[in-house]
């Protein structure tokens, strides 16, 4: 990994935690600003540690790594919030409450639809995670590539040929006589 893991972990952890938190995660609605920022930060950290200028290709690999790590961290952080938001409303309780009541068929149909939606929650979460991961890989990579462009160290010029010295065989001083 040539020292890419540490900056990727740090960049991924910061954007992963921020993206997993409610409200703060909405910053990702601005073209995945948090995710791209994570890649950008990782590129900065990687260049800081690297003695030579990093390449754009290295930045792309670093961004992919940051996206994977950040995506996993985000999943762990956001899972409790996601489950909590789905658990707040339990349609079975509503069905118990409405049982025995003489309700129009539209309402019964609506409650049935809610139950079906709850069953879809698990699969929806998985699909959302996969989509998020794809999007994050792309945007973290782009963020890291922009980071390389911004933070790339100037290359140390290679030592050229030595300057021409004095001639090895000293010439006799020119006589004006």
């Amino acid at each position, binding site marked *: 990994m040539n020292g890419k893991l540490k900056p990727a972990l740090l960049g991924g952890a910061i954007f992963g935690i921020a993206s997993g938190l409610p409200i703060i995660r*909405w910053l*990702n*609605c*601005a*073209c*995945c600003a948090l995710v791209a920022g994570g890649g950008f930060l990782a590129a900065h950290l990687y260049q800081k540690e690297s003695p*030579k*200028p990093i*390449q*754009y*290709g290295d*930045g*792309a*690999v670093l961004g992919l790594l940051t996206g994977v790590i950040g995506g996993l961290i985000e999943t762990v952080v956001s899972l409790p919030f996601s489950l909590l938001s789905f658990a707040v409303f339990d349609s079975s309780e509503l069905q118990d409450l409405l049982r025995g009541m003489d309700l129009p068929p539209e309402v019964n149909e609506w409650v049935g639809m809610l139950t079906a939606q709850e069953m879809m929650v698990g699969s929806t979460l998985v*699909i*959302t995670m996969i*989509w*998020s991961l*794809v*999007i*994050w890989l792309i*945007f973290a*990579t*782009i963020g890291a*590539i*922009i980071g*390389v*462009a*911004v933070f*790339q*160290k*100037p*290359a140390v010029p290679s030592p050229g040929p030595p300057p021409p010295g004095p001639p090895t065989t000293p010439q006799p001083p020119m006589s004006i006589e």
Partner: protein
Amino acid sequence: MRSGPIADHPAEDFAGQRRWPAEILLFSAVAIWMALIFLAPYLRASDSLWADWIYGFFHQACHQIPERSFAMWGEALAVCHRCLGLYSGFTAGLILLPGWRFLSGLLQRRPRWVLLFFAPMMLDVMLPNTPASRYFTGFVAAFPVAYFVKLALLQLAAKPAQAVGPSRPAPKKM
């Protein structure tokens, strides 16, 4: 020069058998991405279930507020004005930058100038804006990014074949 041997050359200078697969991959990905954005409202207008999948995919990166999105077939596009500008700018950069040597040369010599292209968008976010301003500032911001993404991909494609640098003609045998 600011960086190593590969970055010392503009993206157009890369040659070799690995260049074209890398470019085709990038162009195909961008074409599919753009097509999905415009396909989503058509599918939604046709009551296709696939529309929800496409909108759901782009929702990971965009708020998709209908008032802040262009509409086609009576439905909002899969992304907002600014995101559409960014993606369009990226696509235009991929197509146009190889021909605009003065700009690609400038980005090659001074890659940090990429931030200047983001400045109008940052200002637009803070100031009162319009759909046109959101679209065009996004377009300008992403236009030069395409150059660096393409360069990164070409570097990755070149690495297994050659350690560094674009292909050069072999020395003539005496």
